[in-house]
């Protein structure tokens, strides 16, 4: 009598990955099965053996690896932020790293639900924790690459006074790093039985727009201002337009002098 609902809830069983002849499945290589126990191993794996990271993200204790990857992302973005801050110096030495690390994490958080939805809609069997892990991997790879670009960025920031030029340079570095990060994410996506990549590509556009808009929402990152956050709300296209106009005006006045 107490049994209101005699039918037990039906939870679909996990569908094992479809084996494609000639294509190695995650974990087929014994090297991919070696657990990633520390930060150095995580960095080494994402650069040299990304499949090892993808395999480890499917294991029950993936939470530790995700935490490590997020920690590396935060530290690397803080370091790159200091390099960005050296252009203006002063308060920007702490404001730029804080804004870059915060902006990156918030962008990822904003886009995580839509990534999971697109993953499911494409038929992928990836669990939420795996999607979180792949996104953390994207952030880690992206920020590690930014560290690689940091010396070049620093040299340029010490030798130019043009805000627009430095902004463009940082955007180019960020874009290159993001492409590699997205390649990692797409590779992980491909290993989860996804039927189509259309949803993933749509998400990439959303992620890029959110990340670029975040740089405008948290401005100034390279230059200086009286307040930590902007007083006026703007979309990134109009902000970039304003920056270019200001640069043009500066150039004209310098030419007149």
């Amino acid at each position: 009598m107490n049994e209101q609902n005699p039918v037990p809830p039906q939870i679909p069983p996990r569908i094992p990955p479809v084996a494609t002849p000639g294509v190695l499945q995650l974990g087929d290589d014994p090297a991919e099965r070696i657990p990633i126990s520390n930060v150095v191993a995580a960095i080494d794996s994402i650069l040299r053996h990304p499949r090892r990271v993808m395999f480890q993200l499917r294991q029950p204790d993936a939470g530790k690896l995700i935490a490590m990857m997020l920690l590396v992302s935060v530290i690397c973005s803080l370091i790159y932020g200091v390099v960005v801050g050296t252009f203006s110096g002063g308060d920007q030495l702490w404001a730029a790293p804080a804004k870059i690390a915060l902006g990156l994490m918030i962008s990822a958080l904003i886009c995580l639900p839509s990534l999971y939805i697109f993953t499911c809609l494409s038929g992928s069997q990836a669990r939420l924790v795996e999607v979180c892990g792949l996104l953390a991997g994207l952030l880690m790879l992206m920020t590690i690459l930014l560290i690689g670009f940091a010396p070049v960025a620093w040299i340029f920031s010490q030798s130019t006074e043009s805000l627009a030029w430095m902004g463009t340079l940082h955007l180019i570095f960020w874009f290159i790093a993001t492409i590699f990060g997205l390649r990692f994410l797409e590779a992980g996506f491909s290993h989860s039985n996804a039927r189509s990549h259309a949803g993933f590509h749509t998400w990439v556009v959303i992620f890029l727009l959110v990340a670029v808009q975040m740089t405008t929402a948290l401005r100034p990152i390279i230059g200086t201002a009286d307040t930590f956050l902007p007083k006026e709300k703007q979309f990134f296209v109009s902000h970039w337009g304003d920056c270019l106009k200001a640069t043009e005006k500066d150039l004209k006045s310098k030419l007149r002098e």
Partner: protein
Amino acid sequence: MHAQSAKLKTHLAEIATLLRGETETISAWSECWNARRFALHIAVIIFGAGLFGATMGWWRDPRQALYVAIKFPLIILLTTAGNALLNAMLAPLLGLNIPFRQSFSAILMSFTVAAAILGAFSPVMAFMIWNAPPMSSQAVSGATYSFIKLANVAVIAFAGTTGNVRLFQTLARLGGSKAVAFRVLVARLAGNLFLGSQLSWILRPFIGSPNLPVEFFRATALHGNFYENVFHSLMQILTSD
């Protein structure tokens, strides 16, 4: 704590199954009544559509956000409930012989898919609103308003289309024929569109206007209907010199 986490994982796995469109499992779900699953679908609709509604109204005022967070899921639930009987009667007439409960369950699941998508997009929409200049007469006449409106329409259209694609797949599996599933889907879409449009008209405003007060219902909520208004607008265009 562990039991709650396991419960949450089960719920998430069920929503993921709906999103993936695993028709075999979904058809089995629609065949047997399960109060817990029904409650989960209602909760996803309330939470997902409510969150999206809140982002929609937030640009005007936080109070407007609260109102739309209530109104948006309400439209979905009222449309589902209002057309339930009609949809259940039309299905056998169009060749799909399924009981009322199964028909209702299939429609509810399609709205659950749509609401889950809406909910997942709400952080992106909220970020967009946060970056927009405050709502003013100037902002409403500019590109920002059009952009926000179009972004809302695009997300709702995507969520609605995906929900209906999943419903079509379920109906095709239940009826064993794509032609029958298509007929039933078109009938349901027509009914839902007809009732849904009027409910949205009664429950307006959603985004809101800077020149009008923040209110749950407009004073003219029950004056006229959506179709009358469309007809008057058409007549105005056709008869204006």
